[in-house]
């Protein structure tokens, strides 16, 4: 049996606003789960229902086989890192970390021992006597982490904990969080709208949109085999390019035909696409799924060049709209005529259901 189970979870505000429509998820012990989605998709609400900070409209939550939805937050065996860190300003760092332990009535020496341990893990040993206002944003973040791991929770919740940090700190803090998770093996749920955070941290990602789960999968699954157009569009930077194409069955071959190009699909796809003969579907290709050489099938001209150091991103016009292509040919110039080819890694979606065909 799984360690944590969210069953048909729902949240409705004011009887009308459905923040979370349906949420089913099972989490194994020690897993690092990331809830990913645009703001307002219900990911924070779901986390707050798990924490007990938000009442549950329908469904149930189990930790270790026990339903927790009728328990107070303090009795759920969870800990949490908040977006604003919520490090209490009137307490020293030591008191912040020790507060939960004091409430659990642990003996003083033991509290001190635990605080010292987590302070070493989080690298805040020398700040224990300071007040939060004397610390930088990153240090406050570490205090919040220390406070959360000190209580040895059954489940570790993080609500966009990195969004208030500057870009550089965010990346290093991300690595630190991953290291702490690997060392402690704590079961974690992490909420974010930043896909690179999600991809780099998660064992499994739960992509949410408008109160429902779009896809659950490992970072690789989410990136390479997105189940819906929403996921394909939301994940990846720059995002995937979409083309409206028509399926044409010509004898044995199945062709995809757009305004300015036409090609026969890969073998695995032929069977599935036969039933779409004559219909429009959506072709999705990530910027790195293109080749730039003299043999490609789409002739176009470079409009914008954005060097990124190791590679460049170019904007070109295909079928009347601008698309982004990533290439390692660093010497490309604006106005240059090129030919784009497509590698086999493209995906096709049903235009009506927006779900992946292959």
């Amino acid at each position, binding site marked *: 049996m799984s360690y944590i189970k969210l069953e048909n979870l729902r949240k409705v505000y004011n009887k009308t606003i459905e923040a979370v429509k349906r949420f089913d998820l099972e989490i194994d012990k020690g897993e690092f789960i990331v809830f990913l989605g645009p703001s307002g998709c219900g990911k924070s609400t779901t986390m707050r229902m798990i924490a007990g900070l938000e009442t549950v409209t329908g469904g149930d939550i189990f930790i270790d086989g026990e339903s927790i939805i009728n328990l*107070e937050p303090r009795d759920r065996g969870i800990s949490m890192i908040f977006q604003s860190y919520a490090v*209490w300003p009137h307490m020293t760092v030591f008191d912040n970390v020790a507060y939960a332990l004091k409430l*659990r009535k642990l003996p003083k020496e033991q509290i001190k021992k635990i605080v010292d341990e987590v302070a070493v893990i989080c690298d805040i040993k020398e700040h224990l006597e300071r007040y939060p206002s004397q610390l930088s944003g990153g240090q406050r973040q570490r205090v919040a982490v220390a406070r959360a791991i000190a209580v040895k929770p059954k489940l570790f919740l993080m609500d966009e904990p990195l969004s208030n940090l500057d870009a550089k700190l965010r990346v290093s803090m991300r690595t630190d969080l991953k290291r702490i998770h690997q060392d402690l093996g704590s079961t974690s749920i992490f909420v974010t709208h930043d896909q690179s955070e999600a991809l780099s941290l998660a064992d499994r990602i739960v992509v949410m949109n408008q109160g429902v789960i779009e896809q659950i999968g490992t970072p690789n699954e989410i990136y390479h085999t997105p189940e819906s157009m929403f996921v394909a569009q939301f994940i990846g930077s720059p995002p995937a390019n979409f083309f409206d194409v028509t399926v044409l069955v010509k004898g044995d071959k199945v062709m995809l035909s757009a305004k300015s190009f036409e090609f026969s699909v890969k073998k695995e796809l032929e069977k599935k696409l036969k039933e779409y003969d004559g219909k429009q579907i959506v072709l999705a290709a990530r910027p790195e799924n293109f080749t730039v050489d003299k043999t490609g099938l789409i002739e176009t001209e470079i409009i914008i060049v954005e060097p990124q150091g190791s590679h460049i991103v170019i904007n070109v016009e295909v079928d009347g709209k601008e698309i982004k292509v990533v290439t390692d040919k660093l010497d490309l110039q604006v106005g240059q005529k090129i030919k784009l080819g497509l590698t086999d890694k493209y995906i096709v979606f049903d235009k009506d259901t927006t779900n992946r065909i292959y």
Partner: protein
Amino acid sequence: MDKIKTRKPFWKSPYMLVLPALIFYLIFWAGPVFSAVKEVFTSVDGGFSFETIFFLFEDDKFLPALGNTLLFAIVSIVLQFLLALALALFINRNFKGSSFFLFLMMIPMAIPIAAVGIIWDTGLTESGWFNSILSVTGIQWFLDTIGITDGAILWKGATGFKAIMLLVLIDTWTVLPSVMIIILAGLQNLNKEYSEAALVFGATRFQTVKHIIVPIIKPTIITALLLRIISGVQVWLIAVMVFDFDTVPFLVERIVYYNKFFYTDEYFKLSVAYSIFVMMLVMTIATIFLSANKKAERGRT
């Protein structure tokens, strides 16, 4: 670029904007304070003397007035703080009609004290509206039955401690909204995640209030309480309107009483002496509170 220094005429100097205030306070604030001190330390015939100081301390009503004033100020501040905090915590959420409720709550604090006096002066007579409510709601009957009262309560006959408690209740009715609104503003500016974090990390709701919310909004609370205690030590009008002069002595009541009902120089000086005592009391309390506030804010900003 270097600034070109031109000599402005003196009347264009920015200090000209400060001058009116300076002159005003020199004449109308420092002047009376200084002359009050001088008045107290000169005898009736003009020489330096401690006569008035002795007169003040020998006044039979001095200690009762001081005691009553402090009792009133402290009891009302404690009661009002606890009630206002509870109420503010309770309505610190958006319920339907919350703004209308706040609107109702704010009415008493807008009422001038003279009108408050009239409300309660007429309300606390034997057949006033207060006893009417007790009678109509059956509370009077209940109190009579369990033997606490025997017939209508004669509120205005209250003396000593009871009279002061009655005044505390009237004062609480008047000012509770203002205390509550200040605390409510503090709560609304408080990051909700602070108390959520406490709840998650094992605190009960009561512990969250005690350990997290109150300490964090302490500067706001101190401000509200300072405001209250300063007007608390200046209580007099309600007491006089409900109980008349010289029944429940307060410090400021003494100032007015000796000033208005006695016409000799000695009593004028006594009234000035009470004034100085009140000024010093207010300034002392303010200093204590403001330094407490500094302490509360230290290490935070």
